[in-house]
């Protein structure tokens, strides 16, 4: 059956833990993880809830393939109303924690209320208790994980926790598990800390059994793994170079947002790329990249493990940062680097370590640094206010601001507002490169037109992981489309959005989609789970999930006016590269998209669409 058919409900206000059966009727319609967790959330929480109030809930959800032998089957999703966005938030993480929760016998944990004091949840199979976290409240994610493993004398315990940035109210704080895997976006960590919930420590020995048809599942997962191994991207490119291999190609095509999107190409891109990470440093003769790493059950292994130059100004005489740890992925390298004009690879690595250590989203952080640097260059913010001179290109400003954001001290409190609130506070909201309050990731939508529509319509605010049309527009997966054209992008975005919702809800990694389509996922689900998981039904499930999220946002007050882009992208043409002279053509794509979706011209799902999807 692959679902454990059991969820935990934790009332933090009352200090109680109860077990409930999983709603299997909903599982048949929403699959698991992102889809099923969101269904629970919207059934239980009003759309108008204040994200940081006890009335908001926080759901950790696995999918039916989480913890199974399906490749990459280790994912879980954190669902809540986002602290950064006020929209539906569902932030997905890998590592080992999700599989551990499933192997402890639980599909999902629903946290509600707010604890009167700092606590953590201890899950040891069916024995689940709320424990006092006072002795490590105020410490980092890294300290918390080490502390809990030592306290419980269990090195195999998996820990998901929040750091000091979340405790201090940074609105883009992440939930971090396994030291450097994160449910990173939308401020899900901020919501967790607002409930005085520091960590969830899990040890699971029950396992994941009761696969519907074990032999068929073995055959289907084996065949799908062969597809990943035989594919040049998932079998060779990602393990060797990680996502960072994108840095140079996105720069070459003129879609690398640079200096708060003032430019679309960064002269220092090569210095912060995958190729640079693999080169020996002139300073110590060692490469930044130590090795790659896989999450639970993953046969791709795209993760980066890096080690810093011990003589770099950020870590000199600070041995706690000398070990090998989670290195730069593409999005982080872009946000910490090109977004600010910084090309010091070691400084970026250090800032990334801090984002892992104290749990904040490097994308929103880096993009906020970009806005701060632009405000500094305009003379709106001063050295005295920020605490350091902060022109574009200053590695020292970047690492200074990362340290302050990690601990919420000084200007770090302002940084924690995110770019939307910060730029509004200082009178220049137009400088926030965000949608629905969430900062853009690493693709400029003047050079990749479909990504403009992706960002504008993403249910969780600007995000590349809701519809990665870069795959088609730049990389030719599954087919090559013209990145500078708007024609056909409405249908492309819809197709990517719906399929992505299925990958996320199954409990597998979206990166499998570089080799797999739903044709490869369907037989694995069909063998593992009862129900109809045919390709046709999965397409409907994905569309249902997307519309469900949209309807929550509409009820929360979001309208078609929020499906927009900062005016920089629609009025200031790209200065260089193939997109020179172009702005994003959102005005053309958006009405086509609403029509493709079966929504009104105001962006609301029609009664016919809702009826067709069972909503």
């Amino acid at each position, binding site marked *: 059956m692959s679902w454990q058919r059991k969820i935990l409900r934790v009332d933090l206000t009352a200090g109680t833990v109860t077990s409930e059966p999983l709603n299997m009727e909903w599982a048949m319609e929403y699959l698991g993880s992102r889809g099923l967790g969101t269904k629970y959330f919207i059934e239980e929480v009003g759309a108008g809830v204040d994200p940081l109030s006890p009335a908001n809930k926080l759901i950790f959800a696995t999918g039916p393939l989480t913890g199974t032998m399906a490749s990459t089957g280790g994912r879980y999703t954190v669902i809540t109303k986002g602290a950064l966005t006020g929209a539906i938030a569902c932030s997905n993480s890998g590592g080992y924690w999700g599989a551990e929760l499933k192997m402890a016998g639980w599909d999902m944990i629903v946290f509600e209320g707010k604890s009167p004091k700092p606590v953590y949840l201890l899950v040891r199979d069916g024995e689940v208790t709320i424990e006092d976290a006072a002795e490590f409240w105020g410490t980092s994610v890294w300290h918390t994980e080490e502390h809990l493993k030592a306290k419980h004398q269990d090195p195999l315990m998996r820990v998901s926790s929040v750091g000091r940035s979340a405790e201090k109210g940074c609105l883009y704080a992440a939930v971090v598990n396994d030291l450097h895997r994160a449910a990173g976006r939308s401020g899900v960590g901020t919501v967790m800390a607002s409930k005085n919930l520091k960590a969830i420590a899990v040890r699971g020995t029950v396992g994941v059994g009761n696969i519907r048809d074990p032999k068929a599942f073995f055959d289907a997962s084996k065949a799908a793994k062969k597809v990943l191994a035989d594919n040049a991207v998932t079998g060779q490119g990602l393990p060797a170079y990680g*996502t960072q291999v994108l840095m140079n190609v996105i720069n070459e095509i003129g879609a690398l947002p640079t200096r708060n999107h003032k430019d679309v190409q960064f002269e220092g891109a090569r210095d912060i790329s995958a190729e640079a990470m693999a080169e020996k440093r002139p300073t110590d003769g060692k490469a930044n990249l130590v090795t790659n790493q896989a999450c639970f059950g993953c046969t791709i292994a795209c993760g980066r493990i890096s080690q810093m130059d011990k003589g770099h100004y950020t870590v000199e005489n600070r041995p706690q940062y000398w070990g090998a740890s989670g290195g730069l992925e593409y999005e982080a390298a872009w946000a910490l680097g090109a977004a600010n004009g910084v090309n010091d690879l070691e400084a970026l690595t250090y800032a990334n370590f801090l984002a892992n250590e104290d749990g904040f989203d490097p994308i929103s952080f880096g993009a906020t640094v970009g806005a701060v640097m632009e405000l500094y260059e305009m003379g709106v913010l001063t050295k005295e206010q920020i605490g350091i001179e902060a022109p574009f290109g200053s590695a020292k400003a970047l690492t200074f601001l990362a340290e302050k954001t990690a601990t919420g001290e000084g200007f770090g409190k302002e940084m924690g507002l995110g770019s939307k609130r910060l730029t509004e506070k200082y009178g220049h909201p137009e400088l926030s490169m965000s949608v629905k309050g969430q900062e853009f990731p690493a693709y400029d939508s003047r050079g990749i037109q479909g990504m403009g529509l992706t960002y504008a319509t993403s249910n969780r605010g600007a995000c590349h992981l809701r519809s990665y049309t870069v795959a088609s527009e730049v990389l030719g997966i599954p087919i090559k489309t013209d990145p500078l054209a708007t024609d056909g992008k409405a249908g492309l975005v819809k197709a990517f959005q719906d399929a992505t919702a299925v990958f996320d809800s199954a409990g597998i990694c979206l990166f499998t989609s570089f080799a797999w389509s739903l044709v490869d996922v369907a037989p694995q689900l069909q063998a593992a789970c009862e129900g109809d998981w045919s390709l046709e039904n999965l397409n409907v499930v994905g569309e249902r999930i997307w519309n469900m999220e949209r309807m929550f946002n509409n009820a929360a007050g979001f309208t078609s006016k929020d499906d927009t882009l900062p005016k920089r992208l629609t009025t200031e043409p790209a200065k260089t590269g193939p997109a020179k002279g172009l702005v994003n053509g959102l005005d053309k794509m958006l009405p086509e998209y609403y029509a493709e979706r079966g929504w009104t011209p105001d962006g609301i799902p029609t009664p016919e669409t809702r009826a067709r999807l069972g909503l």
Partner: protein
Amino acid sequence: MIHSLAIARAPAGGAAIEVTLKLFAMLERWLPEGARRNEIRLSVPAGATPADIVVALGLPEALCAIVLIDGAFVPPDQRAHRALAPNEALSIWPPIAGG
């Protein structure tokens, strides 16, 4: 440093042009000696196409997934026909993805 690259189909003694070649990821190993930071200046016969350069360097065609001239994608069916102009940059990647 400028590396002269002989193109099999080009007539001897014809005019030459200079272009920039950039090879990334696992294609780095095919960069001619003298390349730095993934790129090198090439002297090639006028009229040379991306396909000519791929063949001359011995690059496996299956690994040439993303072929750009000055950042613009060159579709597979045009790679043997689109002549490089002086000072254009030819950039090639194997199949890659990320996000």
